[in-house]
Structure formats: structure tokens, C-alpha cells
């Protein structure tokens, strides 16, 4: 098993390398010359050339890629063209709202979706099942910003239960923090809940049909332990996998949700960077999110080799 884990960890290295290469090429291909931006309006051609040499912009592509890689491995993502603040610092400043939103959404989604999927599988073919499946189709179809505006309109503007927009940092207390994040998290969770509930239902349907479940029923066990102890445990691997894969949806959705609810997170940072054509910032955020995604899926894979004794490699 240790052998497998090691192999699995090593297999992420080439993927990360390719991601880094793609993201680097993005900055390399970006229009506009960083040297002339830094030099300013009045700079002469010789000034620009000197800065270009200082920055190493005159060197070949692969050498620059190597240097850039060396820098990011030491946590240096470059400097924002717009504000001259190091990208790492910008990211750290904006990390809290995004991480809070994503973790909150993840917990909320799993708590809603798994029981939903179990219920739908248990009551397969009934109106409960159909309701869950209908919700799943809607969750996949209604874009996150539409749900966001709908929730904000009804629950914040009309009913006044939650703030319409804005973010209360964790340091202002857990209550306000949770209140400011509940609507964004609900909006963001819809598509994620749809995905997890659907997978849970499908795997549970297969598991519930197996002999040991029939045995448990024949023994006269209650429905609840059968569903959640015997069946769900064995349906866990596909469900956990899809939770990991779905993080991509969560990341993409977070960018939009932050725009709708005006949360000062990484999504806002990305959107602002696009409007200002601030390529180092765009590059840094994409790199961060992609590595996060790769690492989460790595952890998911490793965790269930440890947890599930049936998986042998």
C-alpha cells in the first residue's frame, strides 16, 4: 500500500509540471511588454532594453520557464503589474473569504446531499426519489449567479434574514461570519449537492441490491442502520471520489459567487485582475487553485486506500 501511495504522489508531479507550463505560457503569450510598463511613459528605448535585461526577458523561453518554476517553488509568484504588490501577498490577503466559503459550502453540501441521495435510493421509484432527481437536474441547470440573485432577493432583500452582500471576517465573530456566508454557500452548493446526491443515489442503488443487505434485512435489522451503517459505508468510494472531483465546480463557482455577493476573496481578485489585465495575478490564482485541486484529489485517493481495506494495489 505504501508503494501505491508513493506512486500516486509521484504521479501528480508531471501533471503539476504540465499545469505550471500551461500557466507560464499564458503569461509568456500575454500581450503587452512588462518592461515598458515598468519603465513608464517617458522611458527611452534604451531604458526599456536595460529593464528587459534586468528582468531576464531577453532570455529563451525554456530558461525563463525554469527560472520561473524555481521562483514559484520558493513561493514567489511575481509582482502585480497594477499595484506592484507581490502576488503571494495579494493572495494571502484574499484567502480567508474564499477558503471560508469553500469549506462552508463543502460541509453544507455533503450534509444535504448524502442523506438526499440515500433517501432517493431507499425510496427508489417513488415521488421522493423523483423530487430528488428533479432537484438534481435543476441544480445542474441553473447557473450559480442566478441562484445567488434569487436567494439574495428573497432571503435578504424581501425577508431580511441575511445580509444582502458583503463579508464579515471571522475576527468579527462566528455569528456574523456565518450569516454573511450562508447565502453564498447555499447558492454555490446547489450544483455540488446535485452532483453528490446523484452519485450517492446511483451507488446506493447498486449496494442495496446485494446479498449482505438482504441478509441484514432478513435478520430484522432496522432500516436506519442498514442504510447508513451497512450500505453507505460500502457506497462511500464513488461518493468521496465525486466530492473530490466536484471541487473544480466549487472553485469555478466561487469566482462567480464572490462577484454576486461582493465578497473580497480570490474570485474578486481574479475578476479585478482580468479587467486590469494584471497577468501575474491571474497566473498566480490559477496556479494556486489548480494545485489545490490536484492535491485534494490526491488526498481523496490516498484516504480511501487507507480507509477501505478492499482496495489493494
Amino acid at each position: 500500500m505504501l508503494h501505491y501511495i508513493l506512486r500516486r504522489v509521484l504521479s501528480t508531479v508531471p501533471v503539476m509540471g504540465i499545469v505550471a507550463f500551461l500557466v507560464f505560457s499564458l503569461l509568456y503569450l500575454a500581450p503587452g511588454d512588462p518592461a515598458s510598463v515598468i519603465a513608464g511613459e517617458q522611458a527611452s528605448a534604451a531604458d526599456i532594453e536595460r529593464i528587459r535585461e534586468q528582468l531576464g526577458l531577453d532570455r529563451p523561453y525554456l530558461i525563463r520557464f525554469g527560472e520561473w518554476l524555481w521562483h514559484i517553488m520558493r513561493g514567489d509568484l511575481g509582482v502585480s503589474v497594477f499595484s506592484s504588490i507581490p502576488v503571494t501577498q495579494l493572495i494571502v490577503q484574499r484567502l480567508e473569504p474564499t477558503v471560508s466559503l469553500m469549506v462552508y459550502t463543502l460541509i453544507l453540501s455533503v450534509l444535504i446531499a448524502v442523506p438526499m441521495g440515500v433517501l432517493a435510493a431507499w425510496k427508489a421509484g417513488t415521488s421522493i426519489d423523483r423530487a430528488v432527481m428533479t432537484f438534481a437536474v435543476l441544480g445542474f441547470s441553473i447557473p450559480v449567479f442566478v441562484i445567488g440573485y434569487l436567494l439574495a432577493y428573497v432571503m435578504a432583500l424581501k425577508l431580511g434574514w441575511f445580509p444582502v452582500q458583503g463579508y464579515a471576517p471571522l475576527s468579527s465573530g462566528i455569528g456574523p461570519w456565518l450569516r454573511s456566508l450562508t447565502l453564498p454557500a447555499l447558492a454555490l452548493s446547489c450544483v455540488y449537492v446535485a452532483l453528490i446526491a446523484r452519485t450517492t443515489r446511483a451507488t446506493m442503488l447498486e449496494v442495496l441490491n446485494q446479498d449482505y443487505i438482504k441478509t441484514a434485512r432478513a435478520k430484522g435489522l432496522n432500516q436506519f442502520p442498514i442504510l447508513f451503517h451497512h450500505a453507505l459505508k460500502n457506497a462511500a468510494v464513488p461518493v468521496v471520489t465525486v466530492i473530490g472531483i466536484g471541487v473544480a465546480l466549487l472553485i469555478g463557482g466561487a469566482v462567480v459567487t464572490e462577484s454576486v455577493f461582493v465578497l473580497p476573496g480570490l474570485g474578486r481578485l481574479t475578476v479585478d485582475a482580468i479587467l486590469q489585465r494584471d497577468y501575474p495575478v491571474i497566473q498566480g490564482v490559477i496556479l494556486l487553485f489548480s494545485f489545490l485541486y490536484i492535491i485534494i484529489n490526491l488526498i481523496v485517493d490516498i484516504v480511501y486506500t487507507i480507509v477501505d481495506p478492499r482496495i489493494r494495489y
Partner: protein
Amino acid sequence: MAAHMSGAGHEGEFAAAPELPAILPPVNRRRGLAGLIARSPGSSIGVAILLAIVFMAVMADYLSAIDPARLSPIARNRDPSLQYWFGTDMLGRDLYSRVVYGARVSLIVGFLVALLSTVLGLIVGMFSGFVRWTDSILMRVMDGIMSIPPILLAIALMALAGSSMTNVIAAITFAEVPRVARLVRGVVLSLREQAFVEGAITAGTTTPMIIWRHILPNTLAPLSVQTTYICASAMIIEAVLSFIGAGTPPSVPSWGNIMADGRALWQVKPHIVFFPAVFLSLTVLAINLVGDSLRDRLDPRMGGKG
């Protein structure tokens, strides 16, 4: 399958022998349209909505009396009325016309991305499956692209390329190709092991002929489902890109752009955001319904009656 299990779930009700199915009622399949709707209501609704939206997009010139780009400064931010069915936006443009024309943008982006990424993914997947030495390189690259969340990748490409509809289509296609390529490769690899393909190889059939006669027909079924979902997701990504200002140019009346226009005022004038939102959601829903019914027909494990 699982339906009778759940029925026998209550304590003490469990019969020793599996219960025999009751004698099936005589199947009286209704023919024609009524029968089709009764058999798969989901896909019928989906197709109906989709046809309506396509009709709207094609007939946009006739359906809207007012030019979607015409500004009328005296009629800004009007609520829906008889003259302006969906109201007007902050520049006094008629929202009904804009929403009708917006259908064109969404449909063009959705269908072209679906088509292009399917064709490109098919090519990459076939290459990986048949030209074995390219497999590990191609698949590592595909894995790399797939590790960047699609919306972020599209955002990055758009920031690079500048806003235009062609670039939106290219950016989303780039993000979606790996999913198709992976699927095609998987199908090719499993088909190659099958006796009928091995037989064809032994009989000396050329590779292009094997692909054409044996591989392609068997790939089309799973691929059609994937293509439908890509179409739906492309429409959502286009709207997201436009909404955050990295999509089609602001002058193009796409649903995402209309929503972006209404963003600043949504608390007082929610109708500007509301109408494009409803049309976008309905269109994506329709395509997903069609995709689901295709999938249920091909892979009954995921949905349906279980």
C-alpha cells in the same frame, strides 16, 4: 431492480423467497406523439423548450420590433410594460429584444463548442487509443488541462485573447476537449480487446477501416451524451464569462452581458437580471433533460427507475 427491494424493506415483511413479479398488465403502447410524451416526459419537455428557444433565435429579427442596440435615454430602467415587455436597461435598451437576440449567442456558443470539442476530442482520443506511443504524452497533457478548473481556464484564455465571440468559443472548447478525449480513449481501449475487433485486425482490416466500421459506431452512443452535457456547460461558462466581464464584447446582447449590465441595479430593478436568467436556465435545463434521457437509454444504472 432495486424497486422491489425497497418495497420489502419493512421489518417482518421480508419474504423468504424473492417475490414474483405480478403478472404484467398488457402493454398498450400508444403510438405517435402522445405515446412518445407519455414514455419520456423529461426529454419531451426538453425538446419542446429547446425548439422554442431555437425558433426564438432564428426568428429574432421578426420577433422583436425594437433594435436591441438602440439607446433611448428618456426610457431608462423602465419596468416591464406593454411597450417594453421586459422593461428597459440602464441605457434605455429594450430588454425583450436583447433577450431574444441573446438566444442566438447562447445557442451558437453551446452548439459550436459541443461540435468542436467533440471532433477534436475524438481525434485526440483515437490517437491515444491507436498510436500507443503518443498515449502517455497526450494523456498527461489532457490530465494537466483537466486539473485547471474549466471556468478558470476559460477566464485565463479570455484574459489573454481579448473579448470576442470566437475567442469565447475557442477558450471553452480548449477546456472541454480533454473530457471527450478521455472518454473516447477509454472506449477505444476496451473495444480493442473485444473479439470482433481482434478478428478484424487478424483478418487484415486496415486501421482506418477498423475505426470507421467498428470503433466509431460504438463510440457515438456515449459520446452523444457527453456532447449534450458539454453544450449545456458551454452555455453556462459563456454566461459566467460575460457576467464577470471576460466574455463576449459588452455590445453583444448575450444573456451573461445583459445580467452584467443589470448587476449594479439589481436591488432596485431586479427585472434586468431576472429575464435573461430565466431564459438561460430554461435553455440549459432543456439540454440537460435531453442529455439525461439519452443517458438513461444508454446507461440505465445512473437514473430512471433504478
